[in-house]
């Protein structure tokens, strides 16, 4: 489903991604962990081209985009369409209702009729447990509810891959569970997911694979059980000790 080859990203003098190679299969849930500044968020943002990689190529589904030469806009748009992102700070549109937030992508970009877009949005909002909040504005919702709208908005684009950028990091502890539950349900449906998170419990329970990144490189990848009980690399061990996985 996703193939990344030799991906580099540089911000001025700072090299944030130093050659990432990665293959993710259809239906897999991959959790990316690592210390801050390890490049995990940048990697995720490159998949949705919110950051344009400096070189390397990304394939999602049947779309391959090579960033080593100047990339045509069409190729960027085609690749971006394959994925949808859930942001750490939700980034909902505050001037639109919950329903409008979710309908916006299908109507404006996918050219769906209003009726169809509304149907799709309502179904998704029911699915994330917000069927009774359609006409609320984002600020009237709790953080957990807002993030679930963010998930519905991303799903409405019918992406091949769902990207989650620390989706629970901005939430109060008691609201984390409801968001993780929705993500778990999606995983059970067989949606391909790449999740950057510090929720090790989620990684353990839901991930098919865990990737540990440090200093712009993938240090280690393995099944969650193996990663958390017997990591192969010393750096992984240090990191896991620091965050104390229970």
């Amino acid at each position: 489903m996703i193939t990344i080859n030799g991906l580099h990203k540089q911000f001025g003098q700072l090299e944030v991604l130093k050659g990432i190679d990665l293959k993710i299969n259809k239906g897999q849930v991959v959790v990316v962990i690592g210390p801050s500044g390890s490049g995990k968020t940048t990697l995720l943002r490159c998949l949705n081209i919110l950051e344009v990689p400096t070189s390397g190529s990304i394939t999602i589904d049947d779309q391959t985009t090579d960033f080593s030469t100047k990339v045509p806009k069409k190729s960027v748009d085609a690749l971006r369409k394959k994925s949808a992102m859930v942001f750490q700070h939700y980034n909902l549109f505050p001037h639109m209702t919950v329903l409008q937030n979710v309908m916006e992508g299908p109507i404006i970009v996918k050219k769906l009729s209003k009726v169809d877009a509304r149907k799709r949005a309502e179904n998704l909002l029911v699915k994330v447990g917000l069927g009774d909040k359609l006409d609320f504005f984002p600020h009237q919702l709790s953080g957990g509810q807002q993030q679930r709208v963010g998930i519905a908005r991303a799903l409405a684009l019918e992406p091949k891959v769902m990207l989650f950028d620390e989706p629970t990091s901005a939430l109060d502890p008691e609201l984390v569970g409801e968001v993780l539950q929705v993500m778990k349900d999606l995983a059970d449906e067989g949606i391909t997911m790449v999740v950057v998170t510090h929720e090790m419990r989620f990684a353990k329970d839901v991930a098919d694979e865990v990737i540990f990144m440090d200093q712009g490189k993938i240090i280690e990848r393995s099944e969650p059980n193996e990663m958390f009980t017997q990591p192969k690399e010393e750096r992984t061990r240090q990191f896991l000790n620091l965050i104390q996985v229970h």
Partner: protein
Amino acid sequence: MDIAQTSLQPLLEGLVVFTLPLSIIAFILGLILAVFTALARISTVKIFQWIARFYVSIIRGTPLLVQLFILFYGLPTLGIVIDPFPAAVIGFSLNVGAYASEIIRAAILSIPKGQWEAAQMIGMTYSQSLQRVILPQATRVSIPPLSNSFIGLVKDTSLASLILVTEMFRRAQEIAATNYEFLLLYVEAAAIYWIICFFLSIIQGRLEHRFDRYVTR
């Protein structure tokens, strides 16, 4: 008291026929100009930036009255003759365009980067992001300073009296020149300006309230 009453009608006529139309037309044209100027300023295309900077610099760096005089008394030397009212509309529009462009630019820049990214993520183009996500939010931010500009503009239109637009203040001058009641007529004109601006402040409050419905801050 009699003079105050008899002069009220010509003053109001000046208000309705010139002062208000001039203010409203110039503000609308100025705003359109301001949006494009603001976009040019934040564009990545250098030449657009320069043109916008140059325009804003010229307009802000020279007195409004001098600009009006150049348009009305200066241009005829080059064979370009503009009637008083259109000359005033052009002058005030250019003026509003420059000042309001800075307000709109600041409002656009005040919208968090995450909003651009979310718009981009759902597949919007630059102009779709701007129209559907950024400008609606920027509008809310810019209502107080733009109201300020509009109120300022209504009062500034009295300068048009100096390029022969028979707006309210010129009417007051004309009447005072015949009956020598300078204090009375100028205070009367001032009172009418104040009443207009008072109502504009009320409208501003309503607009702010309407746009505030989606935020708690």
